[in-house]
Each structure stands twice: as C-alpha cells, then as structure tokens.
C-alpha cells in the first residue's frame, strides 16, 4: 500500500538473470507494501527462477513477445487482481525504486506519471541521432499534452486504474511503440500526463548500445512510430 492504494510493480524481463534478483530484492526492501510482478518474456536463462527466489510473482510467457507483450500481460494481471496503481520499472536496475512513492503521489492530479531523466536530476546524457530523436519526440508530445515532457521514451512510469483498464486491452508490442505510441494514445484520449524528475543509475548487468548506426535506426523508427501513432485511429 502506498497512499492507501494497492500498488503493483511490473518488471518486464528478458534474459536478465544477472540483474533481476538484485532489482527485485531492492524493490521489496524499499517498498514493502507493494507486490512485484516480473514478466519473464520467454527468457532462455533462469530469469524466472531468480525472480521467484527473490520474492516476486513471476508470469512467464511461452515465447518472446517483445517489451510490449510483456507489459500488456502485466496490466492484465493488475486488472484481474484489482490493483489501483501499476508502476513499470526496468529489469536492468536503471530505475531507482525509491522514486516510486513520488510517482504514485503525482497520480493525484494525473492518470499517467513518467519518471523522466533530463529533467534536472541525475547526469544522464545522450548524443547524436538518438538525442535528436528524443528531442523531436519530446517537442511534439509536450505540445500535444500541454505539459513539459522531457523523456517520452522512459520505461519508468506509473498509471492509475483507468489506464490499467486501457493497457490491459491495448498495448503495442513493438519497441518504442510501447513507450511513444502509448503516450500519444493516452494524450489523445485526454488523460492527464505529467512527469516527475528522476535520476538514472548505471545498469546492474548488460551493456547499453552506443553504435551510431543503431542510433540512426533508432531515429528513423522513432519518427515512423510517431507518425503512425498520430494518424492511427
């Protein structure tokens, strides 16, 4: 319970056995009143077992669906079990669970709260095409939402019951679609969105990608996803 609300922390994980144990242990230590659901997206390693031993509820998909598939399953679980708030958080340890109460607090005057890097806290930096992509996205989405959104691709977000219902039925499966397209849809349905500054940490395991070609592909995909999200019904 946070603010008298039943809170579910959804952690989508794919081959994160290295870091998932530590992430779950930390969440349970920092937020004792919440439940942790790890969605094991068809991992080949023992992500599911590690998470279960650390005290999480584990939902294992029979094969890999991509981030969005895992997230929709998380929201379905939240809807079926009647949670008031769902918080999504990455399995690589980038997101500090100590910010979760802050995000949940902000739900008092918004339906979706994004934990945003670049909003003052922490020293997270990106460069090149990736930065342009993020800049473009935040420009367009801020204008649409009538509020400043500096980190539209953040996977650290909290939502209330009305959006749990929405996301349980509809959640794009593609990478970037899971963050950008959901945001566009939520704004177009006139839900209130706001952001809360958070600091990002170094990952517990895994390596971030820094290749310039990947960054360029990222830019193109971001643009495509944005255009599609805007013209889709």
């Amino acid at each position, binding site marked *: 319970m946070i603010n008298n609300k039943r809170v579910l922390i959804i952690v989508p994980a794919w081959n994160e056995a290295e870091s998932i144990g530590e992430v779950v242990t930390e969440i349970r230590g920092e937020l004792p009143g919440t439940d942790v659901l790890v*969605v094991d997206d068809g991992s080949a390693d023992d992500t599911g077992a590690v998470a279960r031993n650390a005290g999480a509820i584990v939902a294992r998909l029979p094969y890999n669906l991509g981030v969005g598939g895992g997230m929709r399953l998380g929201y379905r679980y939240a809807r079926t079990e009647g949670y008031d708030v769902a918080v999504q958080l990455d399995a690589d340890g980038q997101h500090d669970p100590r910010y979760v109460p802050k995000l949940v607090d902000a739900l008092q005057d918004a339906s979706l709260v994004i934990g945003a890097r670049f909003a003052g806290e922490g020293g997270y930096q990106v460069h090149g095409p990736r930065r342009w992509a993020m800049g473009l996205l935040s420009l367009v989405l801020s204008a649409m939402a009538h509020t400043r959104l500096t980190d539209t691709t953040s996977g650290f977000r909290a939502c209330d019951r009305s959006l749990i219902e929405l996301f349980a039925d509809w959640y794009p499966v593609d990478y970037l679609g899971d963050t950008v397209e959901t945001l566009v849809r939520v704004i177009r349905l006139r839900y209130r969105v706001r952001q809360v500054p958070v600091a990002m940490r170094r990952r517990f395991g895994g390596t971030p990608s820094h290749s310039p070609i990947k960054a360029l592909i990222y830019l193109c995909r971001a643009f495509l996803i944005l255009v599609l999200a805007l013209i889709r019904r």
Partner: protein
Amino acid sequence: MRLSFLTAIAALVVLAVIFELLRRRQLREKYAVLWMCAVPVILLLGFFPRLLDSISDLVGVASGVSLVLFLAVVFLLMVCIHLSWEASRLEEKTRTLAEEIALIRTMLRERDQVK
C-alpha cells in the same frame, strides 16, 4: 501458337496445384473461393492469351498479353497485401493467447501457494 502452348501448360499446372490443395483440405474455404474464381480466368487466358486484345485497344494497352500481365501483377499485389494483413491478425491472436496462458499459469501457481 507457341505462346498459347506455354501459357496453357502453365495454367494447367496452376490448376492442378490448387485442385490438389483443395482436395487434401489444406486450404480454408475463404481462400479456396478466391482461387476457385481465379482458376477459370487463368485457364481461359492460358489457352487464348489474345482474348483481351479488343479490350486492350479500348483502354490503350498495345497488346492483350500486356494487359493480362498488368492485371495479374495487380491481382498478386492485392493477394500479398491481404496475406500480410492476415499475418498481422494471426500474430495479434497468438500474442493474446500467449498472454492469457501466462496469466492463467501465474494465477494457478498463486492459488496453490495460498492453500
């Protein structure tokens, strides 16, 4: 004359393949209907490729054979689009099934733990 020979043989091969697939129940009815309609057209034009010459004059295409080729490309393109649409729908359906199965298994496990 040699052209008719070639196209007629091609038409017969296509006909045989579709017939065999239908006979072995490898095609759903909705696709079967599509190909059943296509078969007579393919056969007719296979044996008489110059059948459309008069119509091609009307629409400004030099020869009936070119017109057939053009229509065939359009038809195949539509079939391709239809198939990618079907594939998207199927992916969405299998995704939903996978999620539902995972959800049911998770809840079963929890129920066992409570007991």
